[in-house]
């Protein structure tokens, strides 16, 4: 039994016998330990390591148990010691959540454009890519009265012709 390579005493096992009909035996081992945090300054200065400790910042806690028949089970999680900065390489999904609804809509529209590649529009039918462009134009438009009128003009534009000019 170990936690991040730190051996844990297994002498405190508790057996709860079952009745053999509705419950079986359960053996559990309460673990309650305090794992120290490494002194990185000291490790750098003295070129030493301190296994079985956590580091300041993000850590992965990995707990593993092996039984007498070498069956293995584990649990793990990530936590931090002290303050940590937001990870710059966080996932796209979390970035989208952080940026908010506006960015999420744009991302979805981009997906629809990728799907629409290679499709030929029927006469008089609007292509998905043009829908995206129109939405982006609408989002990128300014705040003057001409821009507010822009969506009405776009609704009348159909087919595969020249896209409307981008308002500046």
């Amino acid at each position, binding site marked *: *039994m170990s*936690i991040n390579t730190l051996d844990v005493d*297994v002498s405190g*096992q508790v*057996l709860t016998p*079952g009745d*053999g*009909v*509705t*419950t*079986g*035996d*359960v*053996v*559990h*081992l*309460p*673990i*309650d*330990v*305090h*794992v*120290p*945090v490494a002194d990185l300054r000291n490790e750098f200065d003295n070129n030493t390591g301190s296994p079985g400790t*956590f580091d300041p910042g993000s*850590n992965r*806690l990995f*707990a*593993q*148990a*092996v*039984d*007498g*028949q070498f*069956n*293995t*089970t*584990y*649990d*793990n*999680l*990530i*936590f*931090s*010691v*002290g*303050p*940590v900065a937001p990870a710059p390489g966080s996932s796209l999904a979390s970035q989208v959540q952080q940026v908010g609804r506006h960015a999420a809509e744009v991302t979805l529209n981009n997906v629809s454009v990728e799907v629409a590649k290679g499709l030929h529009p029927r006469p008089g039918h609007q292509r998905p890519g043009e829908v995206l462009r129109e939405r982006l134009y609408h989002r990128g438009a300014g705040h003057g009265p001409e821009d507010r009128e822009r969506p009405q003009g776009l609704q009348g534009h159909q087919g595969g012709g020249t896209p409307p000019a981008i308002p500046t």
Partner: protein
Amino acid sequence: MPLLRVTVQDGLNKAQAFASIIPYLDVLEPNGTVISESQGDVVSVLAAIPLVAPGSLKIKVNGTDIVPLLGLNPATRSRAGRTTAWSCSAANPVGVSDLIVRSAPIHQLSSNTVTLRLEGLGCGAHLITIEGTKRVGSIPNEVTPDCLVDDLMDTGTANGFAIHIFTPAPGEQVASGPVHVTARPATGCPSPA
């Protein structure tokens, strides 16, 4: 005990069939099997049921007959079937899937097995008991003491092996060390090493 077992393997898959001249019930899997929760927590159950009446089967998980909980009436539903999504309780839901009963009289081809999968039993020992009654006409009601008469009930045990970390919580920001770690490994058999 004259129990004929036929096994076929193609290197990846295995199938077994059983036959006997008397009614016999034997839970072959699980047989003290250790199931690691971190590796799926799925228990495969296999029982041989030659000359056991399929309509009489009771499949008990820790003493609870799951057949009526699944909405099945084995007395009327004799064809092999599949069912899923049974929960033992809301607090500890257990999934049942691929429950298939294959049974036939002695003059018909059948593997004479009960198979199912149990998922999410959790840690500790779990008792899977299957019981039934003999097929009509398979053996006389009154036999001499020299005859072997199976009680048509058998229990297999699966040991769930798991470890759970309670503190720190996932994503928790601990102010400073040392870090208080609490966890609990549990199994149905003693001596985690």
